[in-house]
């Protein structure tokens, strides 16, 4: 029997297409391409939104018109034509279901292929799902269990109808419409997303989870997520994505706003595995996301992300540590392969006294990809005894990829204690040799070493996610040995 060599493996992986790349044909109601005031109004009308929301969208649209696409990120891509995108698409089947049986079987099949069948999910470890397929919330589960505790977990369009006072009070407070180009665009045209409110002193009994999917060809997805943790509450929120294989570039410009009031804690975990483009760098999703959290006194926000997908990623989950004694955390693994480009990191803005932040960022680049960490730690002059620890490690595989670090540290207070360190290295030959001589083949050895490298971050993920994330890492890096 001929031996299965590394070359065979490389050949196999080259031809291996994106595992989750399939496309479900659901009759969609899609708006004509392009963006103007009428489209914004139409989206708002379609969603039966109140007047103030329409106005808010229009204001954002006006701001967006005058803004320019940012160019400072360390990524190269063909800029999307914003007039060639359809800004709304909803699955044609009736959007509201009482039970899972009513859901379009084709759609259920999609979830089965992804291995996230709703039945299974329902049984699994108490995860409530708010499944978003192309912008409209299709099924919401466990709503009753949550409602008993007073927790509101619904799509944002429902929240606008049912809890306008909460939405009106908090939307745009952390990420204002004029924050940046993509945030403005999102504010104008956001189709749907999740809304979550945890009342005072309630500890959310289960992990809240949403799966985002981009399904219809040529539609951009503009999600808006708003999580509010009232005083003394706790919530852990999961977000994960896989997208069908598409040749044209798809745009994703989401906005996530987290608000942690006094003594509250929010844990936000993301696994992102959108279509990264094929081995020649064709296709793939553009992921331009604005995520930011606001911490009041004694509050804590923790971001954990595993970024393995997307052709271009531009994402900086940030914490504004406004209250005294608040804590911000950022744990990230970004893996790039083939022609992927990622420019990701965080911003920690210390405003209150005794605020603490921790940044652990692990970048792994393989193939011809470029992976950048860009972070800001800002200590304002009134932030006494602020503390920050940052660690950015990069792992390079092969000599055609790049790893970059751009940390910005701005300190205006003498009592601040800041530590930043960054390293760049490759997987040691001795490490591989050690594994080899104990009968572990090179591919497995790499997976093992990468897992060890990313362990600090993987440990921060909730159990269900950690397993999936570990698998994702392996899949993303397959074939990068050589």
């Amino acid at each position, binding site marked *: 029997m001929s031996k299965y060599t590394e070359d065979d493996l490389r050949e196999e992986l080259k031809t291996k297409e994106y595992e989750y790349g399939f496309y479900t044909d659901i009759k969609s109601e899609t708006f004509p391409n392009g963006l103007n005031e009428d489209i914004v109004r139409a989206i708002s009308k379609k969603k039966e939104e109140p007047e103030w929301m329409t106005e808010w969208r229009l204001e954002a649209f006006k701001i967006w018109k005058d803004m320019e696409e940012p160019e400072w990120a360390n990524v190269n891509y063909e800029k999307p034509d914003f007039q060639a995108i359809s800004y709304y698409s909803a699955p044609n089947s009736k959007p509201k279901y009482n039970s899972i049986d009513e859901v379009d079987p084709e759609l259920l099949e999609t979830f089965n292929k992804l291995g996230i069948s709703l039945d299974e999910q329902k049984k699994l470890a108490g995860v409530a799902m708010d499944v978003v397929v192309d912008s409209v919330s299709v099924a919401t589960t466990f709503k009753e269990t949550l409602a008993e505790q007073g927790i509101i977990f619904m799509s944002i369009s429902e929240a606008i109808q049912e809890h306008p006072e909460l939405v009106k009070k908090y939307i745009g407070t952390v990420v204002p419409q004029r924050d940046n180009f993509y945030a403005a665009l999102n504010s104008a045209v956001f189709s749907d997303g999740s809304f979550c409110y945890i009342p005072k002193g309630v500890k959310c009994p289960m992990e809240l989870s949403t799966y985002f999917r981009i399904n219809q060809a040529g539609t951009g997805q503009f999600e808006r997520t708003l999580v509010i943790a009232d005083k003394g509450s706790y919530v852990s929120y999961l977000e994960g994505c896989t997208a069908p294989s598409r040749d044209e570039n798809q745009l994703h410009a989401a906005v996530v706003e987290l608000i942690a009031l006094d003594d509250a804690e929010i844990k936000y975990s993301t696994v992102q595995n959108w279509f990264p483009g094929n081995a020649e760098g064709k296709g793939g999703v553009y992921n331009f996301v604005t995520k930011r959290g606001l911490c009041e006194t004694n509050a804590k926000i923790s971001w954990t992300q595993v970024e393995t997908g997307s052709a271009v990623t531009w994402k900086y989950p940030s914490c504004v540590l406004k209250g005294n004694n608040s804590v911000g955390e950022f744990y990230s693994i970004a893996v790039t392969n083939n022609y992927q480009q990622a420019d990701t990191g965080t911003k920690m803005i210390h405003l209150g006294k005794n605020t603490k932040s921790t940044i652990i960022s692990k970048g792994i680049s393989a193939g011809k990809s470029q992976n950048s960490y860009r972070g800001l730690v800002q200590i304002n002059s009134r932030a006494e005894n602020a503390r920050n620890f940052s660690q950015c490690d990069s792992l*390079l595989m092969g000599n055609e990829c790049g790893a970059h670090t751009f*940390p910005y540290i701005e300190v205006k207070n003498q009592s601040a*204690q*800041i530590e930043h360190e960054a390293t760049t290295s490759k997987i040691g030959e001795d490490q591989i040799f050690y594994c080899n001589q104990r009968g572990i083949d090179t591919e497995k050895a790499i997976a093992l070493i990468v897992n060890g490298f990313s362990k600090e971050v993987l440990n921060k993920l909730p159990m269900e996610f950690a397993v999936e994330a570990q698998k994702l890492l392996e899949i993303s890096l397959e074939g990068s040995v050589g």
Partner: protein
Amino acid sequence: MDLKEKLLSSFLVFENQSEIDSYVSDVRNDAIKMFEKKGFPTKKDEAWKYTSLNKLLKEDYSVFPKQENALEYRDVEKYFIHDIDSYKIIFVDGKYSSHLSETTHDGLDVCLMSAALNKPKYRLVIENYFNKAATTDSLSSLNTAFSKEGAYVHIPKGKIIEKPIQIIHFSTGNESATMLQPRNLIVVEENSHVQIIECHQSLTSNPVLTNSVTEIFAKKRAIIDYYKIQNDTQEASLIDNTFIKQKQESIASVHTFSFGGKLTRNNLNFYQEGERIDSTLKGVTIIGDKQHVDHNTLVHHIEPNCESHQDYKGIFADNATGVFNGKVIVEKEAQKTNAFQANNNILISDKATINTKPQLEIFADDVKCSHGCTVGQLDESALFYMRSRGIPEKEAKALLMYAFSNNVLSSVKIPELKLRITKIIANKLGVNIGFDL
């Protein structure tokens, strides 16, 4: 008339006056066009994000000092490191001062840029090296356009120069605000060794803006130690652009000591064009008042098996602002690179600011690159320990700060210079301790 227009019109006069061969003239004309196109950098430029030149550019600088100002040696004696035997190239308001200087043509050239630019025997060197390392950024271009005077050092093959070279730029500013644009060229041939000390000193309370460019070429196995002492008056500002091109197995180090000046910007660029090169960039910054010091470094690793070490320490008091922007680029071919970058800062006032941005851009996989950056305070327990043993608080703090910056000082190879710097540090910290004990 703003400064840019003034400079552009002055250039026409300047170009008419000088009788220089066409090569240099072409370089200057290209450079002024580049400056005209780019203008002065603003805060919108990423490299100038934390440093604004706006205030400086508002002054009405005289670009060509009219009268000659003679200085007596005894008036400026204290600015020399006189207890060492050294070559001296001294400028007063941008003009060469022959009676203060000590130059040579005996086996090596330690002389003037103007001589090198004008005399035919240097023509080949000028064509090979002049403006070959400097980049075309706006301030370097501006200097190139007005390049006329400065130090010219050419060390032939296999010479170890025992005497260090002191380059001192005095400005008397008798007329008004002065803008100086010295241009230095240093070429060190194979297997040679040279030590250079550079210093800018203003003797006036009028504003002085110096936009200096130094190009240094280190050939195979050459060793260069370059020391910059920046301890100028409150009204003096310095933009220092230094470009160092290294060939294989050469060793170059630049130590920058920034203790004074209104605004100091150091653009320090190393290009490693050979294998097994070693580059060292070190600096100590101790400032207070409203002073602003910005270190902007670049190490470009182009070939394999090279090393670079960066170590910058900063202590900031009062309303001072410190900026560190270090960039390490490792090209695809530069395997087995070992690059290290550290920036440590102490803030001793609530109004002091530090902005630091250590960057790594790495395209090769078999490398060891790391950077570290800290901002903190003096260790309370260490202070307590010393005070409990009878060392007054002020001295205890000074000792800790001295120890903090000692990493950089320890690699200064001229003992007299080290002594001079420790004295400046003691003075700066307001204590009377001989740290060399």
